[in-house]
């Protein structure tokens, strides 16, 4: 039995990976804590992988060559998948390829060569017979079960689901980043103003946050979306950005209320730094890690809501290759399970990944959560 009067010696050795005598900065500390959570790191890897897929989507699946040499010139027609106008005008207007490259390239310039995407399928149109070597035409109607030519099957119109999914990655990630970016900007500005100036500024801004929070999200989103005559993906992103900032604003406000009393802020004020400078170059960097928590959850919910809107038919009109649009096609053709299982899993995994990242950040930034480890 140990003597009860023996003083307990606290273990003060720094955690492995740190240089003794010098403590980590706050951001490095959060990153260290985050890295220890295996699930969150796996989620981060998944998102990075998804980003690579999104960037390389025209090279993975498409009907336009990634690089081709045509009449003595080098072209990159696959860029047309990113933006319509980036597809070289030679093919669209002058030489009238009508989107079908393989035959046209060889007949119009026998000297030409091209590097093709891994899979010859298109997210916007049905591939016809013998367009690509001896690949048969895509089946249409409810005949499009997954096959070696259509990995994830085809929809009613005969458009390849795999192509739609791969190109839909771009839409999903863009929606997540762009709309949450808007939310983050609004939220951080509103929250930091309210938290830093307090007083009537805080009262007014907090009221605004409360009003927006009290409107059920989907009611506000549907009302905003319906304003546009023709909805594009940018409209959807804007609307999601304009409605999703309240959580970020509340958290930023709390962080600013807490940080503005800290010594380093008093110091900065004593040196004569202006209010704006204190807010954005002294306080904000210290609040960034906690703010990333609602941002990460916000990305998850933006992807979720965008798919829901496309699913309900409130999104951009087809042929927009969004995961929700594919799912919407599956809703009226329940026997075509591949229209539901593949986009459903994609939405699920992406939302799960962003939630896990958010969770990891939350535990990495909240000292209460990180200290009671098993």
């Amino acid at each position: 039995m140990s003597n009860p009067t023996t003083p307990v010696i606290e273990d003060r050795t720094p955690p492995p990976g740190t240089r003794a005598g010098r403590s980590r900065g706050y951001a490095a500390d959060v990153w260290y804590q985050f890295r220890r959570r295996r699930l969150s790191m796996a989620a981060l890897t998944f998102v990075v992988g998804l980003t690579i897929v999104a960037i390389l989507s025209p090279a993975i699946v498409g009907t336009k060559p990634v690089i081709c040499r045509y009449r003595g010139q080098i072209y990159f027609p696959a860029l047309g998948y990113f933006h319509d106008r980036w597809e070289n005008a030679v093919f669209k207007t002058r030489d009238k390829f009508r989107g079908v490259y393989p035959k046209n390239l060889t007949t119009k310039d026998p000297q030409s060569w091209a590097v093709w995407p891994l899979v010859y399928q298109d997210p916007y149109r049905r591939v016809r017979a013998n367009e690509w070597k001896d690949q048969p035409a895509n089946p249409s109607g409810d005949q499009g079960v997954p096959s070696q030519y259509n990995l994830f099957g085809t929809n009613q119109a005969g458009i390849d689901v795999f192509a739609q999914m791969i190109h839909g990655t771009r839409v999903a990630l863009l929606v997540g980043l762009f709309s949450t970016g808007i939310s983050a900007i609004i939220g951080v500005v509103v929250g930091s103003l309210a938290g830093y100036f307090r007083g009537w500024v805080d009262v007014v801004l907090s009221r605004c946050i409360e009003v927006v929070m009290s409107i059920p999200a989907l009611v506000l989103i549907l009302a905003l979306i319906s304003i546009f005559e023709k909805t594009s993906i940018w409209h959807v992103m804007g609307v999601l950005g304009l409605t999703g900032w309240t959580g970020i604003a509340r958290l930023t406000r709390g962080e600013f209320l807490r940080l503005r009393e800290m010594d380093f802020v008093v110091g900065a004020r004593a040196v004569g730094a202006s209010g704006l400078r204190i807010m954005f170059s002294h306080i904000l960097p210290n609040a960034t890690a906690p703010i990333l928590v609602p941002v990460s959850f916000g990305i998850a919910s933006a992807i979720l809501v965008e798919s829901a809107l496309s699913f309900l038919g409130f999104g951009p009109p087809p042929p927009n290759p969004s995961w929700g649009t594919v799912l919407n096609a599956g809703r009226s053709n329940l026997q075509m399970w591949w229209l539901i299982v593949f986009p459903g899993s994609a939405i699920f995994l992406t939302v799960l990944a962003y939630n896990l990242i958010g969770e990891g950040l939350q535990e990495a930034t909240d000292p209460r959560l990180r200290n009671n480890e098993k």
Partner: protein
Amino acid sequence: MVNYLIRRLLIGCLTLVAITAIIYALIRSMPGSPLTLQMAEVDPSKAISEQDFQQMRRMYGLHKPIHEAYLGWLGSLCRGELGRSISRKQPVTKLIAERIGPTLALSVSSLILTYLLAVPMGLYSVVRSNRPEERCLATGLYMLYSLPSYVAALLLLVLFAVRLRGTAFELPLFGMVSDGHAQLSWWGKLADIAWHMVLPVTCYTYGALAFMARFVKSNMEEVIRQDYIRTARAKGVGSFGVIVVHAFRNTLIPFVTELGLTLPGLLSGSVILEQIFTWPGIGRLFFESIAERDYPTIMGLTLMFSLMTLVFQLLADILYAVVDPRVTFQ
């Protein structure tokens, strides 16, 4: 207390005015009006003349500018009227009263189910904290939490309504009642509705279940570190008694508060699921009235949703102070 209540109520009224004003401005800015949309459906030979069109606009008060029309809506609201639906030619209150039953049937039964399942799950996770079986349960629940309800609904429909059609496990594809519902006996009717409710209630429940089980667990984890739990253990209370009687009773406050905050979310969250299951509830009504540009109905539903949110927030705050004497209204 009274001061606090009055202040909260006044702020609540102002918030409601702000919300309805925002939504009114938004829906009036939507392209098309309830009249043009209706006319588009009838064939051109029957199109009404410009004169009649103007008369109809005046009849429904659509000729006024937005702010005047909004004040008019607010005025009739003060007299307790929500107006008449333009596309359905019925009073909005009657429409909502007709549609709220099916929605409540879904949300209340899923709420009860959630709580019945979440509490034992949460308590189990606390007792078995960090054991492999608890990690499995937690991971499973977390994955359910991230599974979008519309995806789950479609997958369940594929399985139960399409693949298992003709077997004993078949569940209906859509709607609340079968075709021959009127001929059934009283019990038959009830069973028919319950049969139709299985899938929607499942979809409503699983996400909330995952959330609530985690909520119970995190609250319990704070409580079981308290001194009085150690005291109870020391005096020899069995582990079941400690968890249920001593610990769980002390987490009831946040638990009840959470209940107040979930209910309004369940009502407005019904928009997507009711659309998938063609459930004749208010979520679907909202969806339809947006498509029909039925201003009075949209406004009535918006008012109801936001009023519920505010009232339940207030109730939760009051309840918090009633059960916990340390909370004061300052």
